[in-house]
């Protein structure tokens, strides 16, 4: 079953160049395929957004160059990808 955050993540990846131009180094909050908040701190982004939206229904992502913040690599077989 796809995650409810998948469409928000896809939105982030698709709009990363413009987000980088505007919010490099910040944490953006995305819900319903739009940016609803920009913060300096990740915990603050979560705490503030939770006042109006349930945790798990919005995406918090740091805007930074490269793909280190949006990908992980496993060179061993401890992790079994579904």
């Amino acid at each position, binding site marked *: 079953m796809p*995650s409810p*955050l*998948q469409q*928000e*993540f896809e939105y982030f990846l698709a709009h990363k160049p413009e987000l980088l131009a505007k919010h490099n180094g910040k944490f953006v909050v995305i819900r319903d395929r739009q940016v609803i908040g920009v913060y300096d701190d*990740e*915990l603050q982004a*979560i705490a503030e957004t939770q006042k109006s939206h*349930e*945790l*798990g229904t*919005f*995406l*918090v*992502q740091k805007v930074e160059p490269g*793909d*280190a913040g*949006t*990908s*992980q*690599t*496993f*060179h*061993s*077989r*401890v*992790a*079994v*990808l*579904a």
Partner: protein
Amino acid sequence: MPQQHSFTVRSQGGILRALQTSCGIAEAFDPVGTPAAQHPQFKQFQAIWDTGATGSVITQNVVDACTLKPISMTQVHGVDSSNLSEVYLVNIMLPNNVGVRQVRVSKNRLINTDVLIGMDIITLGDFAVTHQGGNTVFSFCFPSQRCLDFVAEGQRSARANQPGFRGYTQPKQPKRHK
């Protein structure tokens, strides 16, 4: 100088085939800004330390036990496949009360463990694995305290074993003017 936090795991005789420790997981919180009474409770799990993983991983079992909610997603690349995984923000309590806060971990299936400690945590400090006398000793501290270089250590040791070595450089005798 920042306070050093460390722990050491010693095999009970013999070589360890995996580096395993206990590990506490709780939803992310600010341990300084949050009153102690409001700190979420850490649930205990087994963790494997994996230098082949760029990031740390938890299983669905951890998500359920800690009632975690996802905050993001990540593209995960494995040995022979890739997928999209949910990301959770957690605080991690390593042995000897070594705490790491606000760690973004992905969720995946793991073999024989519920937590994978990856390079995101390992690179926070110094990580050493030795096998003197056929016994594994695994030690970790953060922040980083020193550089371990076995080559340089060997060269120093070789110099020290040279005949006439006294452990220090002889000062040059000042020239006397006649």
